């Protein structure tokens, strides 16, 4: 599979200050990469370099095989970008604005009409298509921002905090839109909402103080430690030592008298044995839930560790 987006050793200096240092990754079609980092980590600078808004101090970017620095126009034909503030001409209506975006990307009249109709449907803009952008709510403006990034059906889509300012319902819609788009396109999205990455991304890149501290697939990260967690609730107080003796259990953390967090090896899942042990001891098992190992743990470990 060829990579739609390939960045290698990207660095950017502002004077002497290094905002981004040697960041590199490859992204194929059907991959969605979440760019994670605390505020000021260099997420937006990285995205601006990927979209030609900033020239990197060093490094190379290829979009669909075209070098962004040497053949910017061919490369940008395959690129859709939503900056952190949606770039909207407030005096135009939604339809006019999307028409202008199509023209910018050199779409013909017929193709534009079709593309605009399609994107209005996809982003749920039908109720506001004839209204001025200035009069739209923030959520709708954000959706128009996403619409302009995908209207010309680009191979590579870059979204800077796409769900910021949306209500929970809209966030869910946008996330499912991203998942849907991610099936055929390559998407890079920056965010500091970790749940968003777990929900819509296949890959993660964590940046801290301009440096890349981790790049991996979401599946690998969650399995990285080789252990999982179970949450156990009982009606009566439990003796933790009994559970710790069960094969496969790595550690037992008492949250309260009747609530335990049990770490176990993924290769040998002891849930069956735990439930049997609890029933046998007469503690009355009320709940036994596997906990999703979270990206949050990895993120906090990597960024907090570095900071100290």
């Amino acid at each position, binding site marked *: 599979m060829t990579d739609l987006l390939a960045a290698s050793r990207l660095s*950017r*200096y*502002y*004077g002497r200050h290094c905002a981004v240092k040697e960041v590199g990754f490859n992204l194929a079609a059907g991959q969605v990469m979440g760019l994670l980092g605390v505020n000021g980590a260099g997420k937006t600078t990285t995205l*601006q370099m990927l*979209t*030609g*808004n*900033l*020239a*990197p*101090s060093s490094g190379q970017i290829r979009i669909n095989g075209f070098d962004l620095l040497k053949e*910017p*126009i*061919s490369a*940008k*034909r395959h*690129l*859709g*970008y939503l*900056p952190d*503030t949606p*770039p*909207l*001409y*407030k*005096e*135009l209506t939604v339809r006019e604005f999307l028409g*202008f*975006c199509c*023209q*910018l*990307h*050199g779409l013909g009249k017929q193709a534009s009409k079709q593309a605009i109709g399609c994107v209005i449907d996809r982003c749920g803009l039908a109720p506001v298509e004839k209204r001025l952008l200035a009069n739209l709510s923030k959520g709708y403006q954000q959706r128009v921002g996403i619409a*302009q990034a995908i209207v010309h059906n680009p191979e590579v889509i870059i979204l800077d905090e796409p769900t910021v300012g949306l209500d929970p319902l809209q966030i869910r819609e946008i996330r499912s839109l991203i998942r849907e788009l991610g099936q055929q396109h390559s998407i890079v999205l920056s965010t500091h909402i970790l749940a968003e990455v777990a929900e819509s991304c296949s890959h993660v890149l964590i940046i801290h103080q301009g440096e890349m501290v981790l790049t991996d697939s979401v599946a690998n990260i969650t399995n990285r430690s080789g252990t999982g967690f179970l949450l156990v609730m009982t009606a009566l107080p439990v003796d933790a030592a009994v559970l710790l003796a069960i094969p496969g259990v790595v550690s037992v953390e008492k949250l309260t008298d009747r609530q335990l967090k049990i770490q176990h090896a993924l290769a040998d899942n002891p849930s069956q044995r735990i439930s049997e042990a609890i029933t046998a001891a007469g503690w009355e098992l009320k709940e036994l839930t596997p906990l999703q190992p979270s990206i949050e743990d990895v993120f906090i470990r990597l960024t907090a560790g570095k900071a100290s």
Partner: protein
Amino acid sequence: MLPIAARELRSLFLSPLAWTLLAILQLILAYLFLNQVQTFASLQPRLLALEQAPGLTEAIVPALFGNAGVILLLVTPLLTMRSICEERRNKTLPLLLSAPVSLTDIVLGKFLGVFGLLLLVVVLVTLMPLSLLAGGTLDFGKLFANVLALSLLVAAFTSAGLYMSCISPHPAVAALSAFGALMLLWLLGWSATLSDLPDGFLSQLSILRHFQNIQSGLLSTRDVGYFLVFCMGFLLLSIRHLSAGRLPG
């Protein structure tokens, strides 16, 4: 380039600014034009007695176009002030920068948008002397020279205003600096009476002088070249400035 120009022009007409400007310009220039016609009519008996008396075109057109030039000097910075400055403030510039268009396309598009509106002003001004055809004849060569002179003049104003809009953080600053720069270049023509550098260097730089040269009907490459170099210079500076904004520094 053309979509950007079209949007720029459209946005100008969507705001009340363009309409107000067109209306006020037309009102003032019509007043000056009628004044000129009346003066000519009252002087006509005396002019008849003269040998080689100035004709209708010569008496009216250069004065009208000269006035239009001065008024546009005041007005053009107001039209250009927002073009790039506002894109930056509204954060719409990334849309253009990440689209498959070059910086040259962006700057030329912006230039053509404003220039298009100003050409409309030139057409409206030209209609005034053309209305005299109803009762007289015109020297079309001279009229053409004046239309060309005014068009070149507004192109120069636009390019300078665009550059100021490019480098200014706020539209008002852009308008003021463009106005200042143009006014200075205009006034340099007056320095002929003051002590000048050798070879009249300062008056060579003056916009007014080159404008009047073309207005007189004497088309020389030196005057036309001045305007073309002026425009290209400021457009190139704008492109360079936009490009410098992306580069690490």
